[in-house]
């Protein structure tokens, strides 16, 4: 009898917006009404016709209606004679529009009664239909969301390393657990020329598929750049240049990139705004700091490059903010101090990862949903491995550079002390070596490099069965190292000589040999401690 052609288009957005979305249905061809071939008429939310129909007690004569209403004009133009509001639970959910009666008579009061009855029964049925559609749409949205998450997870997992490298003398372990709404965490291990290995931990802002796509792009660009450029700061600079043009608005990538020389323990690193790695050393937990902006924000960024040496027994933890930004039930944050404490109180490697996860789960409470991805990579240098190798053919225990800046000799002392911690020097000889290293480094920074930032001092610690050698090299060129003649204390006390000039004298007294060599604009002071035929050397 009646055909509702497009009865409730635009009704998929929920009941609360129904009034905004009411569409007058296409004029209804009926047995008694002339068929009209007109498109449906939309009624604007502020059109007075809406309020009129909402409150009308039954079928409305369109021709008799006088309202300042564009929709009313359209209905009249379309030849609609009668509009029957469909109201369910006080809400206007549709309108039946009828053209002129086929008999060309006006609609009778019986016609109107019939139509009103029909509307009263059709409205609830229409409403039920709308609700079913809404629910189906919601279910479809949910399903699409779950599918998207699955895609994000697949992208993410596809780009994580399938296996970790087997580095003699090192334990490498990694952990990755995505949040339900997959964040943009990633890590990577990149084999490089000369046996070096690149380590990456990164985090893309945003979640889901967009983050996963940016992550995969970042990873690919990083891999390609790492092979050619090696220096971590230069690599991040290049990656930033490549990412910037195509980065979606409001997205960026934080990333820590380090290059490890497994033979020497030398780790060079740069940081694009990522959480600082922790190194567990004999003297406590230290952070690896290097400045740099996140990737993809602005072109032309420079990335500070730093380096350190991981001594035997030391381990480093690279991590993502999913750990420190996890909350407990009272909204307290896990935080950096707690993570640092966990690193300090735990062995390295896989054991450290396990400990962090245990601590984290105890903190957030059982069954709490993980808020963000959690990613960790640990590198641990075996305590004894290097020593065994060193016993045969001389091992490099440390190899690092220091910026020539007053006070940095303390860094040299700490690093060398850490590197030789396992070789069994007695306390007195270790103290003498530390003083000699400090003095040699100061001398190199002050006289060789003139405290210039572009003239770093490099230090290597070599071990053979017979001797421990610390080589302190500066760019002092041909500048001669003054011989360590014994200072004349009487002359100094009498004010006839400067009170200074003790450095080289001390160095010679503190170690068994102090040798100066020069080559190609570089000058090296080698400090040697004999390890056999211990004669309490030095004094």
């Amino acid at each position: 009898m009646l055909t509702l052609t497009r009865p409730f288009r635009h009704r998929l957005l929920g009941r609360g917006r129904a009034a905004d979305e009411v569409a007058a249905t296409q004029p209804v061809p009926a047995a008694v009404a002339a068929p009209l071939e007109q498109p449906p008429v939309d009624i604007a939310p502020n059109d007075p016709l809406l309020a009129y129909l909402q409150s009308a007690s039954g079928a409305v004569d369109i021709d008799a209606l006088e309202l300042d209403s564009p929709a009313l004009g359209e209905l009249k133009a379309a030849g609609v004679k009668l509009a029957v509001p469909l109201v369910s639970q006080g809400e206007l959910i549709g309108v039946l529009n009828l053209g002129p009666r086929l008999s060309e008579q006006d609609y009778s009061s019986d016609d109107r009664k019939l139509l009103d009855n029909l509307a009263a029964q059709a409205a609830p049925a229409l409403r039920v239909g709308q609700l079913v559609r809404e629910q189906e749409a919601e279910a479809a949205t949910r399903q699409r969301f779950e599918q998207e998450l699955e895609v994000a997870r697949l992208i993410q997992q596809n780009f994580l390393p399938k296996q970790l490298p087997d580095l003699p003398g090192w334990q490498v372990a990694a952990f990755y657990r995505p949040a339900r709404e997959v964040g943009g965490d990633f890590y990577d291990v990149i084999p490089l020329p000369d046996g070096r290995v690149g380590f990456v931990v990164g985090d893309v802002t945003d979640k889901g598929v967009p983050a996963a796509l940016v992550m995969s792009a970042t990873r690919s660009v990083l891999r390609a750049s790492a092979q050619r450029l090696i220096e971590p700061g230069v690599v991040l600079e290049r990656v930033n240049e490549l990412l910037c043009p195509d980065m979606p608005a409001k997205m960026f990538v934080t990333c820590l990139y380090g290059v490890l020389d497994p033979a020497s323990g030398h780790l060079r690193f740069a940081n694009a705004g990522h959480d600082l790695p922790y190194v567990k050393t004999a003297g406590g937990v230290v952070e690896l700091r290097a400045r740099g902006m996140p990737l993809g924000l602005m072109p032309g960024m420079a990335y500070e490059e730093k380096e350190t040496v991981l001594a035997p027994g030391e381990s480093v933890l690279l991590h993502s903010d999913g750990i420190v930004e996890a909350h407990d039930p009272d909204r307290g944050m896990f935080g950096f101090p707690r993570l640092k404490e966990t690193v300090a109180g735990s062995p390295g490697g896989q054991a450290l990862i396990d400990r962090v996860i245990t601590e984290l789960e105890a903190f957030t409470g059982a069954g709490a949903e993980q808020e963000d991805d959690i990613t960790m990579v640990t590198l641990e240098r075996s305590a004894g491995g290097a020593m065994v190798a060193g016993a045969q053919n001389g091992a490099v225990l440390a190899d690092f550079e220091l910026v020539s800046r007053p006070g940095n000799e303390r860094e040299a002392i700490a690093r060398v002390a850490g590197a030789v911690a396992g070789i069994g020097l007695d306390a007195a000889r270790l103290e003498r070596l530390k003083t000699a290293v400090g003095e040699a480094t100061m001398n190199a920074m002050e006289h060789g490099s003139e405290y210039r930032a572009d003239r770093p001092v490099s230090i290597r610690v070599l071990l053979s069965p017979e001797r421990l050698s610390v080589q302190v090299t500066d760019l002092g060129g041909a500048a001669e190292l003054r011989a360590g003649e014994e200072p004349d204390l009487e002359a100094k006390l009498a004010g006839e000589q400067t009170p200074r000039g003790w450095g080289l004298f001390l160095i010679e007294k503190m170690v068994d040999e102090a040798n100066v060599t020069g080559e190609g604009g570089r000058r090296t002071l080698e400090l040697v401690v004999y390890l056999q035929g211990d004669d309490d050397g030095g004094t």
Partner: protein
Amino acid sequence: MAVHELEVSVRERDGVAILDLVGDVDSSAEAALQSAYDEATRERRPVVLNFSRADYINSTGIALIVGLLAQARARGVEITAFGLSDHYREIFEITRLADFMTIADNETGALGGAERSNHA
């Protein structure tokens, strides 16, 4: 390794000025050491240097102490030191600083030495 700029406080005990050195005796220590020495020697009295909380002494620090010793000798002020680790005690011997100042094991020993020299 943390760097601790030297702080020196002056206290008096038994007519002797004791300078408690806390931190690093290196180039950054010059001002703190000199002003404490000046304060301690406003009156002519023996000076005792307490090194028990000075963890790091380098060649520049040695030069500062040589400078103090030179000033003290010019004015006839006796200087005693205590609280040196075995390592720095060895350095004071190698540099012969120990020939020009008394090195005591602890504060009581340092006061005994300082007082004796005061009354000598």
